């Protein structure tokens, strides 16, 4: 499988569209950093309004750790779209180009090929997150410095001592990777059914957007649905900034995401093994 994986990676990284995501993330992160650098104080004051009515907040609130948190909070719901761009193209794009049938007339197992392609999508996904971590965390720390991380949640404020934050980001990025791998798995599965990549990309985006809206809306019926939506569990990275970390809930979410990935992968392999290649 290693040679096929290498070929798939070579293909992915030979395409300009692959780099759109990296550029997009760079631009978005840089814009957020610039905005916060120029006008961060006002933004923070606005965000803390309800708190500053009764309290004086002292210290470097707008530090690299908070900037990273703001970036993740803003960006992580959009990254699935970038991941769908490549994962949704994995099979459907080849079907559209006609290269899928050329590939499959080669002495390569279908499941083997599928796994290699999936693995290549995952490598892309993880690289995207590593890139994001580099920019969002390390660059922010470089620009804004270290400090305690204060997070405003709807019903509480959590302040984490600065020497207690870094390892949490480690876990958060790990968890975010799991979420994004799940999105990749979904896009990849949809990609198997389609003969051009627009379909799976749009469908993945739509599902993620729809589920996110359902997760966000504060309507009792939707709240009942929440535990069943993967988007709810994708927010699990935030749990690592709670004190204490709700390990049980977060491992449950991780397990649910993992089950999704497995389900999508197995279903994908099952379908692909039987699929008639008509493209």
């Amino acid at each position: 499988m290693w040679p096929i994986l290498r070929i798939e990676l070579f293909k992915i990284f030979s395409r300009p569209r692959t780099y759109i995501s990296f550029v997009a993330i760079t631009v978005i992160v840089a814009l957020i950093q610039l905005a916060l650098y120029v006008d961060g104080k006002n933004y923070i004051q606005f965000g803390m309004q309800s708190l500053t009515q009764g309290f004086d907040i002292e210290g470097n609130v707008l530090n690299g750790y908070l900037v990273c948190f703001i970036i993740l909070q803003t960006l992580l719901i959009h990254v699935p779209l970038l991941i769908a761009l490549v994962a949704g193209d994995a099979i459907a794009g080849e079907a559209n180009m006609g290269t899928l049938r050329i590939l499959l007339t080669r002495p390569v197992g279908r499941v083997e090929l599928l796994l290699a392609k999936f693995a290549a999508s995952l490598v892309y996904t993880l690289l995207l997150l590593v890139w994001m971590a580099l920019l969002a965390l390390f660059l922010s720390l470089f620009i804004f410095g270290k400090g305690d991380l204060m997070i405003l949640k709807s019903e509480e404020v959590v302040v984490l001592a600065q020497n207690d934050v870094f390892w949490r980001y480690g876990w958060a990025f790990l968890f975010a990777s799991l979420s994004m791998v799940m999105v990749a798995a979904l896009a990849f599965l949809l990609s198997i059914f389609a003969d051009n990549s627009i379909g799976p990309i749009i469908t993945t985006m739509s599902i993620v957007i729809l589920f996110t809206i359902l997760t966000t809306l504060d309507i009792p019926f939707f709240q009942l649905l929440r535990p069943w939506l993967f988007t709810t569990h994708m927010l699990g990275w935030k749990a690592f900034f709670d004190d204490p970390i709700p390990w049980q809930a977060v491992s449950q979410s991780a397990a649910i995401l993992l089950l999704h990935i497995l389900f999508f992968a197995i279903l994908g392999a099952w379908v692909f093994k039987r699929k008639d290649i008509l493209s």
Partner: protein
Amino acid sequence: MLFLMGIGPVAAWSQDADKLLQQVKNKLALVKDYVAEGSMKTDIPFVKMADANVVVYFRQPDQFRVQRANGISILPKGGVQGSLHTILSNKSFTPVAAGNTNMDGKYLAVIKLLPVDEKSEIVLITLYVDEKTALVWHTSSTTRNNGTYETKLQYGKYASMGLPDQVQFIFNTTEFKLPKAMSVEYETGKTAKPATAAKDNKGRITISYKRYTVNKGIPNDIFK
């Protein structure tokens, strides 16, 4: 006669109260400034915050600052009245004695202080004082706008200077809410409030002092 009898003890008590307040003030006057190292425990219902090391600066008459090195501190508006100085210094009161009471195993004199300045934010201060040592163990301040707050003090090796080893500042907290849309939250399914959440909706900030450096001067820029 009846009138005299009625007024006599009050006057006597007032005199006692005056005297006691003066004793207290004299004791506080021993300290012109201090820098103290200690740890701060923040216990506000909706704030989760680890204990932190702090440096506390004070300078007469009422400059007071709690600084968390490189860190963030969340303190009630107007600053923590973490020192008696800031409560009593530079202000004129009409003291009224209000008898004695037992509190935390101590027999303490109760003095009510009415600000002379009618526009004062503070409406009433109650001091609970140990008459023998002139140390204040408990205060309660009623403000015009910010409700009532209390301080509880404990003394140890710096008692001779009137400096406490520990000050607990107790204040009311109003319900704190962020508009929900600002952040989508991860819900863990647990409905129980965090263990630190007090049932009485009061916040407590406790500073335990380890070391005082007294009357060595403080640079101005500490207080901005």
